[in-house]
């Protein structure tokens, strides 16, 4: 990822706003209907059960109402979206085989470089399909699977079918239903018992055409005692009309396993980002969600953990940055369905230039789950008087023998702090930027270094020219 000062200085407001010429293998008309669904399924040469799954989901999608909570969805025109765009003939295992235009895009985004430097595997999705997937040989030999979900369905049909749709049921919500209808791409990950994947696996998502929809489906199974760290990043060009991203991420954390899933979401400001992420955590397993939402027009995303085994643990670090014309409605869900499970949600949000961020979180303790511990801390920072921050915590505790904490603070960038820093020669932008970085520091220091750097850089970009 480019980090040199020189490059940073030349950046436009949204660095990833460039677009490629369209050169697709398949692009149908807009909207969703049974004919398109059959076409997608046929092109993918799927088994019959998957087509049935899609058609059933379509039924549910039609029945489910648009959510009337969270962000404003009135402008999201679901009929004006391309649900499936196939960019290339096949998925490659070498960057050399990726079509030139597309490869160039990922080069510009620094993906192959990051892969060489610090990643154990990379997947790259362009529009609807994964165009590249690769994992280091050593892990492959240990039985680690890291391929596109489409390939997962073909190459590991039993494993895939056993878990697919079990964590996020078809009709869970309107958007998981759309995903179940039109899903394409995403990663399929399996880590065998006891195998620890030290370096991260990273998937990169890119939307290129206007009004496109991306519906990746990721399924991660961490078998007993295994460990894996999965990272996703996303960007898109800026168009005048909206695009739509609605992924579904299902994670199964088996006994004693540990999964960390990091999202650095930097969509352009015309993308609706409505994602369902959920993990099922078994006995003594640990699930960590790190969810940084910087881009998009509206994000509604609440990573959740269903703690179903004794001693299971869930952690969510949620970071939201809402600027002009952006609404980040984010948070998390912790469902304690077994005794001695524990969870933490730490949320930090920043709102500036009229942006809006909302924390929406749920902690639920089922009856009989003794010894549950949960703590929720949300801090919001407002950069000016016309930005907005709200907190919507939902806490349902049906077990008296549990300890649940919730704290929330809202602060405004303090004039005295800015004056103090400026009196030492820092510009107003530098001063406010430093205050924001300081606000986020407790969270950023928990990230692996490469992502901390990347996130800091994105935040600096967001802060640039924020005043005057």
């Amino acid at each position, binding site marked *: 990822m480019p980090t040199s000062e020189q490059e940073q200085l030349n950046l436009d407001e949204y660095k990833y706003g460039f677009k490629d010429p369209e050169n697709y293998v398949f692009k149908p008309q807009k909207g969703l209907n049974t004919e398109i669904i059959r076409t997608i399924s046929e092109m993918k040469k799927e088994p019959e059960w998957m087509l049935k799954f899609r058609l059933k989901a379509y039924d549910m999608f039609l029945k489910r109402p648009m959510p009337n909570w969270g962000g404003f969805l009135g402008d999201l025109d679901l009929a004006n979206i391309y649900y499936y765009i196939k960019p290339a003939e096949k998925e490659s295992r070498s960057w050399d085989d990726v079509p030139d235009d597309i490869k160039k895009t990922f080069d510009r985004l620094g993906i192959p470089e990051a892969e060489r430097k610090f990643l154990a595997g990379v997947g790259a999705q362009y529009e609807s399909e994964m165009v590249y997937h690769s994992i280091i040989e050593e892990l492959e030999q240990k039985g680690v699977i890291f391929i596109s979900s489409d390939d997962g369905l073909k190459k590991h049909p039993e494993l895939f079918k056993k878990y697919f749709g079990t964590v996020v049921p078809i009709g869970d919500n309107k958007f998981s239903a759309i995903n179940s209808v039109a899903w394409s791409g995403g990663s399929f990950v399996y880590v065998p018992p006891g195998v620890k994947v030290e370096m991260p696996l990273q998937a990169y998502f890119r939307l290129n055409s206007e009004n496109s929809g991306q519906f990746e489906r990721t399924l991660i199974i961490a078998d007993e005692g295994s460990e894996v760290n999965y990272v996703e990043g996303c960007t898109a060009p800026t168009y005048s009309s909206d695009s739509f991203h609605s992924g579904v991420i299902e994670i199964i954390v088996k006994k004693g396993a540990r999964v960390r899933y990091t999202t650095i979401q930097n969509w352009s400001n015309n993308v609706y980002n409505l994602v369902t992420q959920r993990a099922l955590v078994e006995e003594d397993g640990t699930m960590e969600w790190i969810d940084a939402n910087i881009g998009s027009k509206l994000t509604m995303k609440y990573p959740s953990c269903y703690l179903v085994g004794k001693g299971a643990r869930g952690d969510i670090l949620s970071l939201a940055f809402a600027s002009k014309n952006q609404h980040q409605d984010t948070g998390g869900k912790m469902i304690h369905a077994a005794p001695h499970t524990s969870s933490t949600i730490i949320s930090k949000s920043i709102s500036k230039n009229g942006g809006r961020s909302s924390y929406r979180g749920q902690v639920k303790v089922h009856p009989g789950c003794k010894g549950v511990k949960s703590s929720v801390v949300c801090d919001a920072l407002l950069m000016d008087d016309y930005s907005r921050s709200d907190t919507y915590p939902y806490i349902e505790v049906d077990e008296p023998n549990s300890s649940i904490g919730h704290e929330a603070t809202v602060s405004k960038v*303090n*004039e*005295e*702090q800015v*004056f*103090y*820093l*400026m*009196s*030492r*020669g*820092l*510009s*107003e932008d*530098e*001063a406010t930027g*430093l*205050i924001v*970085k*300081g*606000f*986020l*520091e*407790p969270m950023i220091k928990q990230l692996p270094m490469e992502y901390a750097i990347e996130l800091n850089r994105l935040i600096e970009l967001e802060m640039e020219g924020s005043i005057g």
Partner: protein
Amino acid sequence: MHICKKLEIKNLHVNVEGKEILKGVNLVINTGEVHALMGPNGSGKSTLATSLFGHPNYEITQGEVLLDGEDILEMDVDERARKGMFLAFQYPSEIPGVSVVNFLRMASKARLSSNGGEGMSAREFRKILKEKVALLKMDESFLSRSLNEGFSGGEKKRMEILQMNMLQPNIAVLDETDSGLDVDALKNVSEGVNQLVGENFGALIITHYQRILNYIKPEFVHIMVDGRIANSGGLELVEKIEAEGYDWLVNSPVASAV
């Protein structure tokens, strides 16, 4: 690095929240000079200090402030700092999550880059920083802490002087840096100031007590009463105030009761 030589305050009137606090202050500080400013609580000393640096809540209604003949009232706060002015705050702000060392690195880059000067290498910066920390008898562990967060009153004051030593200003205003310091700290801090005193450094030291002036010798002493400089002289003024208080300077008994 920009070097300035003279700060001139001419008939400065300042309103805070619509109320006139400074009512015509005149003062000239040249580099090479140390001035002391004393005066009763609420007389406007901090208001003067803060106004010189352009705090947005302080409204200048009349008068001029010139730095080497150039009007600074139009300048942004940071520009004044980069020109070589420094304010040691009476109540320094806390900046959570920002380490002292990172902050100082940024500030010193800003200062050194004024007039397109050469930057300092990271190694050079660290070396100088360590020297200054030792000079002020501070513990190096402060460098990795969040700026001023949870610092004791005295620690905050030392941190102000550490910053001043790193930034090497030409005109400094020290607002009650001596208040709340123990005997040893007062000595260390004074040494920190005396390091800078010389032909490229002029200071305005705001204080209530004679004791700091035993270490840092001002040539000029000014007394502020009710928003004006009521009297100026030499060190003999300090002794008179220690002995007699401010009553003899205050015309109206109401003003002194602030």
